[in-house]
């Protein structure tokens, strides 16, 4: 650390280098911290989380009972111990609450004044954050699994919506209507994601095992269909042609730079694709346990040297390095299946929601103060918390 700072000071290093190194270190030391808590509001499973990209301060959560809660993550109390407060929520008593499970929530990428939510009640709602009233409601014919809004788009305001029907719908916020339909999938669309690099590029993942990349300006069909065998086997067997996974594909995430695409399927595999060529990079992540019937929201770190993927793995969260496919660690803390996780890039924090109704905050462990001598360390530890003390009875016989 000191070396990095010195090098930075001397101008020997790239300015990003120190930052990257520290971020990586922090991500690697993520742990369940007793100092950070998220207020317990949800009474049922938490399906989706989203942190607004502007400040990285507010977090939305959607529960399977239709409740949406807005949390403030920032700690202004000047104490290490902090419970993330729920600022407001769309509760069951709210007149415009989603009737069924909320599948996806997303902030408007450029401002916290608006967010979107989609639900199994076949609607997509655009909310005004300040009044907590829906500004617009889109109705669909099937349940909505996922929607996404381009984080980089400046020329359009399209929301891609994956529903039970195989057609991907594009809703235009400007006109308030479904402007496009993208046809090509054969089964329900479980995940959609805009490229963070090109504003017209959209990736969709479906239950038919295919992942398609679209250019929404082109009416005639998709750009490419990702093929797990890179076209080698597809000639021989038409059945397995052009599938990304052998099962349903229910998770989709671009890396921050938009150069790669990570998909996850119910065949317990995770695959990394080159998003420009549609090539399978053949990174082996091993078995990634995935039993979800719906979309799965996983996160990719940002600003670290090897980038990390945080993937729900049963009741734990697996942390992989993206490009080497190495399993770094498993974060254990939930007592039931984890449905979603979201990465806060500014402080390298991870939030995860699970079926056990908890939202857990995974905070980088604090660097331990380097003690002057041993005795002081033990003393400080003793003082830290009486609960950490051992309680062996003093008498020899008792033990």
């Amino acid at each position, binding site marked *: 650390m000191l070396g990095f700072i010195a090098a930075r000071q001397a101008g020997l290093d790239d300015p990003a280098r120190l930052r990257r190194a520290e971020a990586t270190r922090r991500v690697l030391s993520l742990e369940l*911290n*007793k100092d950070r808590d998220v207020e317990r509001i949800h009474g049922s499973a938490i399906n989706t989380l989203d942190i607004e990209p502007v400040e990285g301060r507010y977090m939305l959560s959607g529960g399977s009972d239709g409740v949406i809660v807005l949390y403030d993550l920032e700690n202004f109390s000047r104490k290490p111990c902090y419970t993330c407060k729920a600022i407001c929520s769309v509760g069951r008593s709210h007149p415009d609450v989603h009737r069924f499970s909320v599948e996806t929530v997303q902030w408007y990428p450029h401002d916290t004044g608006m967010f979107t939510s989609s639900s199994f009640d076949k609607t997509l709602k655009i909310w005004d954050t300040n009044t907590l009233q829906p500004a617009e409601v889109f109705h669909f014919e099937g349940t909505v699994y996922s929607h996404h809004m381009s984080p980089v788009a400046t020329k359009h305001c399209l929301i891609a919506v994956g529903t039970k029907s195989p057609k991907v719908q594009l809703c235009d916020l400007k006109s308030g209507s479904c402007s496009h339909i993208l046809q090509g999938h054969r089964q329900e669309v479980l995940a959609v994601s805009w490229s963070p690099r090109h504003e017209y590029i959209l990736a969709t993942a479906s239950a038919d095992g295919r992942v398609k990349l679209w250019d929404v300006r082109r009416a005639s069909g998709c750009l490419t269909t990702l093929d797990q065998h890179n076209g080698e086997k597809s000639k021989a067997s038409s059945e397995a042609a052009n599938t990304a996974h052998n099962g349903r594909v229910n998770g989709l995430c671009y890396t921050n730079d938009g150069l790669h695409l990570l998909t996850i399927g119910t065949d317990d595999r995770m695959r990394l694709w080159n998003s420009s060529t549609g090539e399978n990079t053949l990174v082996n992540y091993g078995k990634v346990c995935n039993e979800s019937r719906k979309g799965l929201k996983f996160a990719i770190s940002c600003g670290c040297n090897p980038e990390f993927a945080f993937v729900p793995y049963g009741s734990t969260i697996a942390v992989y390095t993206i490009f080497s496919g190495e399993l770094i660690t498993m974060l254990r803390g939930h*007592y039931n299946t984890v449905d979603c996780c979201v990465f806060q890039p500014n402080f390298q924090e991870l939030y995860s929601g699970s079926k056990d109704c908890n939202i857990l905050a995974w905070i980088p462990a604090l660097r331990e103060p380097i003690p002057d001598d041993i005795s002081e360390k033990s003393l400080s530890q003793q003082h830290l*918390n009486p609960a950490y003390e051992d*309680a*062996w009875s003093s008498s020899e*016989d008792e033990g």
Partner: protein
Amino acid sequence: MDQRLAELVEELTTSGEAQLEPGRMRELKKICKSSDEHISYAYHLLMTRLNEEHAEIRFSAFQIVHELFTRSHQFRTLIISNFQEFLELTVGIDHEQPLPPPKEVAQKLRRAAIKAVQDWHEKYGEAYKKLSLGYHFLKQNKKVDFQDVSARTLAERRREEEKQKRLDNIYKEKAERAGKEMAEMSQEIADTLTEMENCFRLLMPDPFDFTVNDTELEPNKQTTANEGKPASPSSSQIALHPSYFGHVDDEQPCCSKDLLSVSQCVKIDRNEELSEEQEKLEQKELDGGTHSELGSGVPALNDDDYQTFVRNHGLISHKYTLDLEISTDIKVHENEDNTAIINNIMDAHRLLRNKFLPTVQSWIQLFTRAGINDDRLRCAIDLKNKLEIAMKKYKEMNISIKERKRKVMKASDAADDDDDEDDEFVEVPEKEGYEPHIPDHLRKEYGLEPPSPPSAPARETSIGLAPLSSWARPKGNEDELDPTCAAATLKLIRDKLPKLSPPYTSKSATPEQAALEEPDSKIRKLEEERAKAPIMPFGLDLHYWGQDEPSAGKILKVSSQHRFWAPSEVEEEVENKEVTEMLKTRYITFAGKFEPVKHKCRAPMPNGGLCERQDRIKCPFHGKIIPRDESGIPLNSEDRAREEKMQFEKQAAQPEWRDPEFMREVEAATGVDLGSSKNNGKGGKKKGKKKKYPNLTDLKQQANTSRSRLEKKVFNKGAMKRVVKAMNRVDQRKHEKFANQFNYALN
């Protein structure tokens, strides 16, 4: 020390007891205290123990965990790092991974674990985040009620509630129905009760209910006054009875034997005194109603009155005490007069016993179960009480019913009723096929031979016939008319006898001669033999006995009736050998008598005992049974020699290197089963089967039900194979049979 730790954990967890053994626990704690490494080792050991599919092991392991958890921070961290699994194994939060059997211990484990989690949370919840998360998870997601001792899960509770609700509804419905039924039926019950009550009253008034008798006492008094004074004590007694016991026998007052005898002392009292005191006594009764003590009624009168009273009645003193015991064990006899009443009462009683009482009881049950506590229940209970009183009364009445033949009575009744209407029916004695005496001239009509050998000359008839006839006679003569009866056959034989067996007839023709000629001893011998001879049931062979050519065994073929075509030659009668044989033979199984075997095999067995089998000749395990002494050594010397030889040969057959001792040692060293236990015979096998942890509840034992045993037999691989083979064979056969028909050829 690690070794010791593992041993300790194993011993503690396999003790199968509810409490940990304190000595070992202390040692374990001491070891754990010594270093963190030991703690983590103990943690791993305990987790493996917790993973065992046995609730007792888990329970003990959990107790150790609890002990260590409160003591070591290191241990706490370890447990909490894997708290999900810990909860799964102890609380059983996963549906797919329920707690293992035995069930009671699993419940106990669950309760203890929940309590422990609560305690830990209170104590360490702040410091260990995951612990509090787990606690909240249990509390909010699994809805574990930490106050609820029974530690039921939410689903269980809800299920129970629903069940209760459903039951309640059913009960309520039933109770409603019962209430309606009661409303309908109570009138009927009340009617029956009143009827019964009236019947009782008619039969025998309540001895303590004097209001009933009041009106009737006057005339009684008159009669007693008229008759009693001059009459003998016995007559007074008779006169008195009706006044006490009502008017059962009003019409025949003298028939005192029909009444039960009043207890003796009363009789004596009366005999001595009553003749004089009668009137006064009756007066007393009218006055006070208490008849037990004379004095009790007296103080109401003043002294003068006493004097006059005493004098008037010719008493010496007024201090008589008169004890009257009225026997309550009444017995009502049925006679012509009260038949109708008794019939009535019995009908009513039957109705009560068979219909009303069970119904009312079921109502009460329904009401109580439905939790109804209003008039309906009270009403039902009242009804039940009334019914019971009536039943009791009926029992007390001790009605002795005449042996009645319903049919006869009915017949006579009918006859009585019909008397005036149709007199043309002449009553004839009943005829039911049996006529004790048949007049001679009618005998032929009945198909009986004329009574040629009547009873008087029967003494002299042939000895051959006599027992036969004596055997046949007791059976009704009408039997002979029935061709299926032995008697009929007998008759047939008897009819045929003269022409069939001339020598026999000659013998019987000269009965007297034969009787005279044959020496007495011979006769006796014959008789003895006859007595010994078994009496056989009648059969076909007896039916055709002595017939030369029974026609029954022949098959008659009908000759062709066709005009032109005729079979070449038709044997019209074909004798079927088998049938004819059957008609002439009889199988008599002569099994002899079963004699239980008294001896035992008593061959020495490897476990030191003696063979207890009781085979007749040969023991399936030890060969021919030979006499042996107490220690199982054969008594005969050659037997002993043979046995020794065999023993020797057996040992020789076993190669020397397979010495059982040596083998066992090798096995212990290598851990490979070389089969020494099998080699050693049964004793070794048993040792091998010994349970590893005798203290734990054997789960397999519990599964050893009749069903599982049957399953083992039925679903045995060999058995299944056999069945499949048999079924295949059947299929195959069918296939072969119909193979030439295309319809069946393909399947």
